[in-house]
């Protein structure tokens, strides 16, 4: 089974995000970068499929040279090799990122592509599904369980108010949702081994693409901070009953939400 995993390096979710002076990007200072949490699930699921079916796990990422760290983490978890696509000065929107990945993947042999359903920085929910379209393969999103049989993948997916099971013929792309698995930590021997695993970097030109076809259709005009919430009223009272009555009264008469 040839398995490809899409991965992105993102600021850790505990990060405080501040806007840079240009007003269209964030301040990189002091940010800790990690593998996107949904991509950890993707790497783990790929490793489990390889463990049961044999094959190779290849990680692909679009990002600056620094993003190689996140690929190395995936290699340390057990993936076999990595490809970093460095777009250089080009600012990629979600679709341009999918185009880069499609160009790298088209000449490759693969049975399954596994990706996080979104990256927790841009929150675009776009790259994985758009890539499936560009490759002309089916995609299944929000996967919490998958089984492979007879050239097909069957997935349990979360949807609003329930679940559904979707089946697709391989090759297919699946996008992970929390609950799929519990990602392993990279072991110390794993980290040592990862240093020797192949990780190649490709430029836009290496992929045979032209920056003109990758110009972003979505551009950030301005970033702003959401209105900061200030603490309101602490409900006082001698007993729980008094406080609860005061709260319900406030919600009913003042806030008018119940």
């Amino acid at each position, binding site marked *: 089974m040839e398995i490809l995993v899409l991965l992105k390096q993102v600021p850790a979710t505990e990060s405080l995000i501040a806007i840079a002076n240009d007003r269209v990007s964030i301040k990189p200072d002091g940010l800790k970068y990690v593998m996107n949490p949904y991509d950890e699930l993707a790497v783990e699921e790929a490793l489990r499929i390889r463990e049961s079916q044999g094959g190779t796990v290849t990680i692909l990422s679009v990002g600056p040279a620094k993003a190689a760290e996140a690929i190395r983490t995936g290699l340390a978890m057990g993936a076999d090799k990595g490809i970093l696509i460095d777009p250089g000065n080009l600012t990629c929107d979600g679709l341009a990122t999918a185009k880069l990945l499609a160009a790298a993947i088209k000449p490759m042999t693969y049975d399954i592509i596994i990706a996080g359903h979104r990256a927790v920085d841009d929150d675009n929910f776009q790259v994985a599904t758009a890539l499936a379209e560009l490759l002309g393969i089916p995609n299944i999103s929000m996967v919490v369980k998958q089984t492979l049989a007879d050239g097909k993948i069957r997935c349990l997916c979360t949807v609003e108010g329930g679940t559904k099971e979707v089946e697709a013929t391989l090759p297919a792309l699946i996008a992970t949702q929390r609950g799929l698995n519990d990602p392993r930590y990279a072991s110390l021997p794993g980290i040592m081994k990862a240093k020797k695993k192949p990780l190649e970097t490709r430029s836009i030109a290496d992929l045979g693409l032209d920056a003109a076809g990758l110009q972003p259709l979505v551009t950030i005009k301005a970033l702003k901070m959401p209105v900061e919430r200030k603490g309101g009223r602490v409900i006082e009272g001698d007993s729980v009953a008094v406080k609860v009555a005061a709260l319900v009264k406030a919600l009913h008469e003042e806030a008018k*939400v119940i």
Partner: protein
Amino acid sequence: MTHNVLVVAEQIQGVFRKVTFEALSAGLKLAAQTGGELQALVLGSGIDGLAADLKAYGAAKIMVADDAALADFTTEAYTQVLAGVIEQVQPGIVLLGATTQGKDLAARLSARLNVALATDCVALAVEAGQVVATRPMYGGKILADVALSGTPVIVSLRPNTQTIAPSAGAGTIEKVAVTLGAVRSQVVAKQFESGKVDLTEADIVVTGGRGMGGPDFSAIEALAEALGAAVGASRSAVDEGWRSAADQVGQTGKTVSPNLYVACGVSGAIQHLAGMSSSKVIVAVNKDPEAPIIGKADYALVDDLFEVVPALTAEIKKLKK
């Protein structure tokens, strides 16, 4: 430049999602700005009678793609039909609800048509002939104004962010021919909890956190029932295995914008706050007066949640009698 606005209506089990009506109302405002008309498309099977439910929201034309193959949503089949309709009616703006289905469909469509997509937007405007959308990034820690180039542009709207305003429209209902090529994915089973309101669309959300101390959420569920609310959980509660990941509110879970958010035993880590700060009114029940959530709540009740929550449930039941 005149641009029509096409809203992709989303129905599940024969009922339109609330966000569909929000998208129609937002679409009508946009159409007024672009000088175009509002159109809607419904996809499904056996949905003839359903389209009329959209008539009261100002659409000039309601298109219906009714085919057995569209009974259940699959990204591939719905993309094919939607792309065909777009080619035919040439809208300037395509609006969807930013639901599980809407986000997936929008992403595949953007690649099919090679057009701009802005996901999960909370506000929309037309500036100098260009659509500018406001969307949260970093789980809601930042808001971005993004400009969308090309035609059409696709925007998915976050549920519970747009005001629903019924409006008269011609509402002509038209059937759309459905031609499907190869579809390599299909829904083979589904399970829906009847009557359950999804977190993202609920008017009221009651969330339990680490302070719950274990998987027994019965007090939270009783309060949610009294309020007609959906039940959420903090990341800690999900990590402990007390609740399913589908219930998680926060940066690695769902973002919610209800009228009322009641956080019980939730400390208010930055990832959690990012996912619920756009709620209109926040109530925190926590015995720790130093918990970060207390500083963000409109109303804070500092006490033992196991005493407060049942008392609150009883008081609300009394109020609703």
